[in-house]
């Protein structure tokens, strides 16, 4: 046996594998430097360097090594970093490609991987039985927060998440194709090639860096006369050259959703030493496929026997892949424990490469004679009808104990590596996610794809197909083409499910079913003994299959042991649900572009910039930024709001009302539609006039309100609340399309067509008038609308008031909003006008008792409850909500009604939401008779003001009620809702 140059790793075998010995890269593992070859995974590189101990298990902190060579890896989870912020915990070393400068660290150990204090758990393991947490950490409840949870988390954990923000970028792509092929093994490639040559749009995704699937592990397969690996490379080269094909390596199809929507996670830079700074790290693909071909292969299982988890014990197929693709042998003296033919191929290849094979132990009494003959030719000892009943070795396996199944004495074999194969589990994850039904194949101990629920077909090993020839044929058939010729002798026949010899119910051994969650055969049996009957319960009780690998190697064994203990057949016990993601997906990929400023839409009005320059403080209203108040130097919020309220009523205030929802209702049946959607009667609203409208839901409760102006016989300018704009339009459109489709009327959102400059206050007309053409403001009555020009641009001018002052709202096309605002400001500022924000707006409307839907109403308030019964057209035959209003409980008197409140101490400002009682001396819990909906300090009134919903409130005018708070009980007097200018004289300036 020759050994490659030492820098490539002592376990690298010269002449084996497909990596170039000339291309080396450097990395560190637990701070020790190592050399790898370009194309290595972290696992192959560590094995090449003789590193077999790579992690500690979750619960018992047992030393663990590399089990597999792919996505199914439960043990070799490490932290991988390129710098402090770019650190990713729980990376499968078998899937991480090594790059120059990679920093890998082991997890779940302290102080070091070889000497780990937590390993004490292993010796007291009998005190950590299945369901341990459920049984132990029950009380006292307070201990959960301070003691149990922190201790459990620290002791039993995976890697630590980095604390720094993720500096990487992530991307998303929606894609469409005729055929999505998942898996670039022989079956998938045959399907993709057939469809691609037929000119169909094909996406081919494979989770590995190199295509070929099972072909990577063998040198024996020939396809169309060339080695399988070369055939795969040639097929991918042809596919990549075609415009109608997208080939995605390093891309995991992790979720299969409705209507052939499949989610893929593409890893773009995790394998690169120096990725471009702007390059996204990962891309989420959301693929809508006409047809999906699942060629996801199969996963080899371990054998469940005593101490089957020592470092150096691995899946036979993994060892074969490490040898034939990476040129790495996992040991120098290797035992093989087989229940399946495929393990023999690994032994043969290793032996041929010069590695000593201690023995092939096969638990089957009868093994194929050709395998035995070949073993004899290679001088490999065969023990058929035998089992490995135990192993020794702390940080690496040192020996295996072999006993005949028929009974008799056991033998010890000195080994440094043990390969095992319990047979193959078809990867039906995605098929099951697609809601396809699974069928149990008892003869071969496996679940196979049954009835498809979507346009999807399974080909190759995931369909239970055992030979290369059949896999290629299925793949080609999926694309309707003739398959290539194939030659391969390897067989995947044979299986063992459940506990093997020596790990039975009476054996007190740790025979691992789930390596990552440290679940043993014993734990599964105990769960059944303690009453778990369904596999779903067994799973949750033992945590079998609940680790980040989702039980890829564990689930079938766990199910078989549970079924055996229950004395039932496997299908009777059921199969746990396959859920996305197939392998862990980063949050970055899921979130992709939606970070920072793209986290959500920030809507700004055309006047936003002016407000910003003038010191405005903004508040979020839905997605809008609205000006909240305009503090002057030295002013706090209260001082600013008081000044804005006072000055607006004394002189004038200017307010950005652009965010108000606006809907243009147009058509010959516009008035009929308005009559149906609003409680008010609109027939007699003259063109040029406005009216306050109330919209109900079907149940009779207030849904929205706003001022509506009639621009023409067949055209209304409807305003809604800022937050209500989209849902009000949808509500209207919904009724129009479903209930009133006969009406000739159309609805168009014009919220953003118009910037709205509101000027309120006694000087409002003086300020605005010089800027207006074609409209005589003096002739405009309160609640009117005119179309004219302002600052030379078209304008809709409304005389309306949400403050109780003389007021105008100038609607101008939005691009002109800023300029018109500035023109009004230039006029008004010398006169003493102030800009005001939403807080002053709220105070001033409360001074007038105007409601805000959603603040003074809560979805159970009728127009009459809100004191707005006058707005309901009593003689109207129909409108949305009319039947709701006639319900006896809505029509009855004494309902909870909106009233005003004044505190006995005028300076006390109530808390919004505070509850109200009639008698503060009654025993707790007191009878609540209502609550405060709006509450402010009113500088204009000189006392606090509040609105409240109170049972039979209007009958309580003048009564004293009480607001019990934590520190005091506040006495309040029930008043009318209007606190200022009840006669409405100020409307005329």
């Amino acid at each position, binding site marked *: 046996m020759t050994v490659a140059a030492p820098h490539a790793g002592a376990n690298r075998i010269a002449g084996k594998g497909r990596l170039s010995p000339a291309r080396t890269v450097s990395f560190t593992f637990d701070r020790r430097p190592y050399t790898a070859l370009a194309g290595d995974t972290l696992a192959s590189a560590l094995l090449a360097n003789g590193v077999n101990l790579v992690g500690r298990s979750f619960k018992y902190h047992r030393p663990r090594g590399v089990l597999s060579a792919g996505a199914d890896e439960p043990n070799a989870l490490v932290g991988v970093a390129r710098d402090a912020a770019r650190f990713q915990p729980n990376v499968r070393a078998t899937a991480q490609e090594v790059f120059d400068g990679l920093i890998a660290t082991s997890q779940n150990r302290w102080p070091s991987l070889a000497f780990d204090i937590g390993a004490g758990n292993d010796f007291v393991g009998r005190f950590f039985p299945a369901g341990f947490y459920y049984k132990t950490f029950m009380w006292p409840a307070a201990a959960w927060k301070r003691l149990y949870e922190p201790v459990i988390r620290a002791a039993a954990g995976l890697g630590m998440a980095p604390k720094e923000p993720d500096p990487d970028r992530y*991307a*998303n792509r*929606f894609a*469409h194709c005729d055929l999505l092929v998942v898996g670039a093994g022989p079956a998938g490639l045959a399907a993709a090639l057939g469809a691609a040559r037929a000119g169909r749009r094909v996406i081919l995704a494979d989770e590995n860096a190199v295509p070929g699937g099972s072909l990577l592990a063998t040198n024996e397969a020939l396809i169309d006369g060339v080695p399988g690996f070369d055939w795969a490379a040639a097929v991918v080269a042809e596919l990549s050259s075609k415009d109608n094909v997208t080939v995605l390596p390093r891309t995991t199809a992790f979720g299969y959703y409705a209507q052939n929507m499949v989610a893929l996670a593409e890893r773009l830079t995790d394998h690169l030493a120096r990725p471009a700074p702007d390059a996204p790290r990962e891309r989420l693909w959301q693929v809508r496929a006409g047809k999906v071909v699942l060629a996801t292969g199969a996963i080899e299982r371990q054998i469940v026997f005593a101490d089957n988890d020592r470092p150096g014990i691995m899946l036979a197929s993994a060892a074969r892949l490490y040898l034939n693709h990476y040129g790495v042998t996992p040991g120098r003296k290797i035992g093989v424990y087989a229940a399946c033919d495929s393990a023999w191929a690994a032994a043969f290849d290793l032996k041929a490469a010069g590695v000593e094979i201690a023995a092939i132990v096969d638990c089957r009494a009868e093994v194929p004679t050709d395998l035995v003959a070949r073993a004899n030719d290679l001088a490999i000892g065969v023990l058929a009808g035998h089992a490995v009943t135990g192993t020794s070795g702390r940080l690496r396996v040192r020996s295996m104990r072999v006993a005949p199944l028929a009974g008799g004495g056991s033998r010890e074999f000195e080994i440094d590596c043990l390969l095992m194969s319990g047979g193959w589990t078809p990867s039906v994850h995605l098929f099951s996610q697609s809601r396809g039904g699974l069928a149990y194949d008892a003869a071969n101990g496996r679940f196979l794809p049954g009835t498809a629920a979507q346009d999807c077909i399974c080909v190759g090993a995931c369909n239970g197909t055992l030979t290369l020839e059949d896999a290629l044929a299925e793949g080609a058939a999926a694309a309707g083409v003739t398959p290539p010729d194939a030659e391969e002798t390897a067989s995947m026949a044979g299986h063992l499910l459940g506990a093997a010899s020596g790990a039975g119910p009476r054996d007190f051994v740790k025979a691992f079913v789930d390596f990552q969650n440290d679940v043993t055969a014993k734990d599964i049996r105990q769960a059944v003994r303690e009453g778990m009957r369904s596999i779903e319960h067994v799973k949750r009780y033992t945590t079998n299959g609940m680790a980040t690998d989702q039980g890829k190697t564990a689930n079938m064994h766990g199910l078989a042991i549970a079924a055996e203990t229950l004395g039932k057949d496997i299908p009777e016990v059921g199969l746990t649900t396959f859920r996305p993601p197939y392998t862990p997906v980063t949050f970055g990929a899921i979130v992709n572009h939606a970070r920072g400023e*793209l986290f959500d*839409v920030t809507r700004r009005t055309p006047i936003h910039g002016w407000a910003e320059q003038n010191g405005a403080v903004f508040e979020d209203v839905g997605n809008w930024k609205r000006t909240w108040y305009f503090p002057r130097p030295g002013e706090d919020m209260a001082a600013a709001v008081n000044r804005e309220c006072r000055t607006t009523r004394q002189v004038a205030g200017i307010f950005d009302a652009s965010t108000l929802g606006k809907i243009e209702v147009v058509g010959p049946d516009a008035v009929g539609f308005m009559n149906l959607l609003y409680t008010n009667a609109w027939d007699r609203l003259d063109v040029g006039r406005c009216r306050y409208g109330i919209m109900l839901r079907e149940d009779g409760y207030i849904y929205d309100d706003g001022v509506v102006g009639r621009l023409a016989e067949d055209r209304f300018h409807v305003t809604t609340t800022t937050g209500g704009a989209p849902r009000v339009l949808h509500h209207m459109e919904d009724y129009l399309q479903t209930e009133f489709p006969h009406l000739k009327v159309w609805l*168009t959102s014009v919220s953003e067509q118009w910037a709205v400059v509101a000027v309120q206050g006694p000087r409002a007309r003086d300020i605005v008038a010089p800027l207006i053409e074609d409209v005589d403001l003096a002739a405009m009555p309160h609640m009117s609308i005119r179309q004219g020009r302002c600052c030379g641009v078209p304008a809709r001018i409304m005389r309306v008031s949400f403050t109780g002052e003389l007021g105008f709202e100038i609607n101008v096309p939005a691009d002109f909003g800023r300029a018109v605002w500035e023109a009004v400001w230039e006029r008004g500022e010398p006169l003493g006008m102030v800009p005001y924000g939403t807080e002053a707006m709220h105070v001033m409307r409360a001074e007038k008792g105007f409601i805000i839907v959603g603040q003074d109403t809560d979805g159970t308030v009728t127009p009459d409850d809100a004191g707005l019964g006058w707005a309901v057209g009593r003689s109207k035959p129909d409108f949305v909500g009319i039947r709701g209003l006639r319900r006896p409980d809505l029509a009855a008197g004494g309902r909870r009604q909106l009233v005003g409140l004044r505190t006995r101490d005028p300076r006390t400002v109530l808390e919004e939401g505070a509850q109200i009682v009639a008698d503060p001396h009654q025993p707790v819990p007191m009878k609540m008779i209502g609550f405060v909906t709006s509450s402010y300090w009113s500088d204009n009134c000189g006392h606090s003001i509040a609105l409240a919903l109170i049972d039979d409130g209007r009958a309580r005018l003048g009564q004293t009620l009480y607001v019990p708070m934590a520190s005091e009980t506040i006495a309040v007097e029930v008043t009318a809702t209007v606190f200022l200018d009840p006669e409405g004289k100020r409307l005329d300036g």
Partner: protein
Amino acid sequence: MAEAARIHPLAGRRLALPGLSLEPCPPAERLSLRAGEDALAAIDEALGLALPRRPMASATAGGLAALWLGPDEWLIVADEGAGLAGRLAALTGIAFSAVDLSHRNTAISIDGDKAVLALAAGCPRDLSPAAFPVGACSRTVLGKAEIVLAREAPARFRVECWRSFADYVWNYLVDAAKSA
């Protein structure tokens, strides 16, 4: 009186990357046109253009583009000064709705070999030439924003959105363009 200054919501923005450029479209006249089948002949005549009757279709004539958005809905986009409202105001006796949206919407032109990839970062529509040829249009989404997308040339699209969404749409396209 001097007319108030007009400020475009994306004033001053521009992005040029290899294979991709983004720029705000100039101001345009826009109408939301809603009408039933019975009114279409008269409207066609008034506009001097046959409104497209097929889903996702558009029609252009004389500086005017009509984008089919629904069975009774079109977005009409025209050069400034086209006087769209005036042309339709003369129509009497037929039921339809024409509402000025010139300032509600704004538009971004995205041009280049990577335009489709940048759009595909946020738009779930199939933008292949077969499914979305030149002249195709659709109301769809880009990320969290509603847009109207129109393919004006093999590698050039017009993205219409509401003005307060323009900043988000622009930034989304920039982020997408950088990772396309």
